[in-house]
């Protein structure tokens, strides 16, 4: 077998320019795939991180039917203390879950004593929220004198940046929030603007924040109720597995009507960015298909030319007794080596490119966020996958020419001019 590869390598080097050009083309395809995968993957991971770590969370549990009517922020689809505790027990039994936090979502009227406007609010437990969405504070601007690490105290509200500008509100200004509770009664409470929060893509991206205890008081809840439980995992890559595990356990909770009491959603079911993520994946696959086409056409072309130019040589091989399978192996080895050399060079250059992109980081703006820095990475599995595909396609592309060579009748091949 070593001898076959040795002969194949010599035959490749026999047509140096052609081999080099073909290899260069394949290498370029591999480099493009590695760079694109790295950049697109980095962009996707960053945007998912922004969405899940600063507002949405990785998974959410609601009372059944809440998400389908989320636009109206219904207050009657709440989880009482008993149900919340049941879910807490379920979540605490799963070691892959890092943290969870209760939330209440509500619509309210905000008044600065001159003007009144509508505001969507996310009522949170600040200590738990920071564990589930560790970057939520990075979107907020506070008074300079505020104690570091303090997200929200009772009696404080963090309002969206646009609303603050529109209502001419500054940090420290008093406001009144008025809200209807689920029975329709109205209540109002005084609050202080503790900070402003910049908007972010997707649901919950333009909401203000208040303390969950204030929300329970504003909504006149006799006992604590929550609307949403946001969840964070130790390892985001295990999301689908944990989702499946928690989901199957939640189906065990049936209400009196015999239907499931709760529903669980992952971030991608809640955020429109999931479609962009799918598009990114689609574009990455498209790049890979283009690479496959380049490899297929290049190697097929080279191998067909190689067979055509060496018909008499094939005739000699066959005449002196080389078996058809050995002749086929010789040509397959040539195609495989061409793919292998290109894959190795492509991987080295691609990794070099990723390394350089990590030194000279690419910055970009996304929505209102500017100076986002891409740190492209590519994992070993991706490299192996790309290399494996290249080698498989190289063999596949060489099959037809190699088969043709192995089927040549020696008497015809020797007589070829």
């Amino acid at each position, binding site marked *: 077998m070593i001898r076959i590869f040795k002969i194949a390598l010599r*035959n490749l080097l*026999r047509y140096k320019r052609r081999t080099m050009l073909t290899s260069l083309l394949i290498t370029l395809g591999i480099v493009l795939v590695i760079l694109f995968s790295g950049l697109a993957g980095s962009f996707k991971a960053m945007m998912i991180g922004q969405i899940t770590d600063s507002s949405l969370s990785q998974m959410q549990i609601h009372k059944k039917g809440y998400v389908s009517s989320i636009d109206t922020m219904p207050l009657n689809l709440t989880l009482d203390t008993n149900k919340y505790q049941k879910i807490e027990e379920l979540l605490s039994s799963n070691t892959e879950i890092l943290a969870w936090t209760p939330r209440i979502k509500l619509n309210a009227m905000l008044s600065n004593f001159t003007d009144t406007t509508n505001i969507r609010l996310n009522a949170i437990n600040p200590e738990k929220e920071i564990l589930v969405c560790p970057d939520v504070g990075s979107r907020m601007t506070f008074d300079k004198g505020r104690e570091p690490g303090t997200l929200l105290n009772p009696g404080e509200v963090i309002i969206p940046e646009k609303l603050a500008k529109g209502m001419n509100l500054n940090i420290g200004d008093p406001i009144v929030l008025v809200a209807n509770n689920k029975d329709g009664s109205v209540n109002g409470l005084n609050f202080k603007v503790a900070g402003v929060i910049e908007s972010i893509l997707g649901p919950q991206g333009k909401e203000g924040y208040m303390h969950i205890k204030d929300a329970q008081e504003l909504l006149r809840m006799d006992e604590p109720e929550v609307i949403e439980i946001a969840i964070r995992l130790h390892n985001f890559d295990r999301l689908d597995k944990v989702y499946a595990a928690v989901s199957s356990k939640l189906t065990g909770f049936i209400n009196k009507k015999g239907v499931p009491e709760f529903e669980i959603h992952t971030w991608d079911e809640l955020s429109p960015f999931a479609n962009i993520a799918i598009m990114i994946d689609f574009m990455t696959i498209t790049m890979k298909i283009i690479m496959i086409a380049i490899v297929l056409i290049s190697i097929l072309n080279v191998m067909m030319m190689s067979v055509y130019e060496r018909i*008499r040589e094939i005739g000699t091989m*066959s*005449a002196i007794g*080389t*078996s058809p399978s050995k002749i086929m192996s010789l040509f397959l080895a040539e195609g495989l080596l061409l793919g292998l050399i290109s894959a190795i060079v492509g991987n080295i250059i691609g990794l070099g490119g990723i390394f350089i992109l990590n030194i000279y980081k690419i910055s970009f703006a996304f929505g209102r966020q500017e100076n986002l820095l891409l740190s492209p990475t590519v994992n070993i599995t991706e490299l192996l996958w790309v290399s494996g595909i290249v080698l498989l396609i190289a063999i596949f592309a060489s099959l037809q020419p190699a088969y043709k060579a192995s089927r040549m009748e020696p008497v015809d091949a*020797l007589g070829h001019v």
Partner: protein
Amino acid sequence: MALVQIENVSKIYQTGDVEVAALSDINLSIEKSAFVSFVGPSGSGKTTMLNMIGCLDMPTKGKILVDGKQVDTFNRKERAAFRGNVIGFIFQSFNLFPVLTAYENIEYPLVLIKNEPAEKRKDMILDVLDSVGMIDQKNKFPDQLSGGQKQRIAIARALVTQPKLVMADEPTANLDKQSSINVIRLMREMKDKFGTTFIFSTHDPRIMEEAEITHTLVDGKLT
């Protein structure tokens, strides 16, 4: 028993609607260790005859026995294996592999056809290289050798597997006068040394003189 036995062999080529008889009812036997030439004008059927005996082509009619085996019944794979084990080939254009050195060209059939172990291979190659007087040129590639030297390497490659029969179609056609004589005498020496049967075709009267037995073909028939 004869090494080659040809009985009522005909070969007809179909060219469009026209049938061309390259060989007609040939009967012939060639003994072991013979040094046999086929001569005749162009188109007389010399190459076709050699192709039939060398199992490169199949007769339209008749029976061919080589080394006691009826080769005209073999399939492609069997013919390839038979050629590799029993027959050596020397070609008019030398047909050395350009990417392999002289040594590696001779080694090729031992590795890819006979699967001989490395140590045994080396001894066999050096022995045959010495016999053809090319041991000093063993590391040269074919394009670094003269025509006569290439044909010596081709003879060594044909002999290294110790075949019973060597087929040589116009082995001196691409060589100058002196080289032609040298090559044909080398073939004869090899026949004497290894006891191999040599069958070759030629146009050249000087080369014909070297043959022990000469068969003349005219219009596909032995005369």
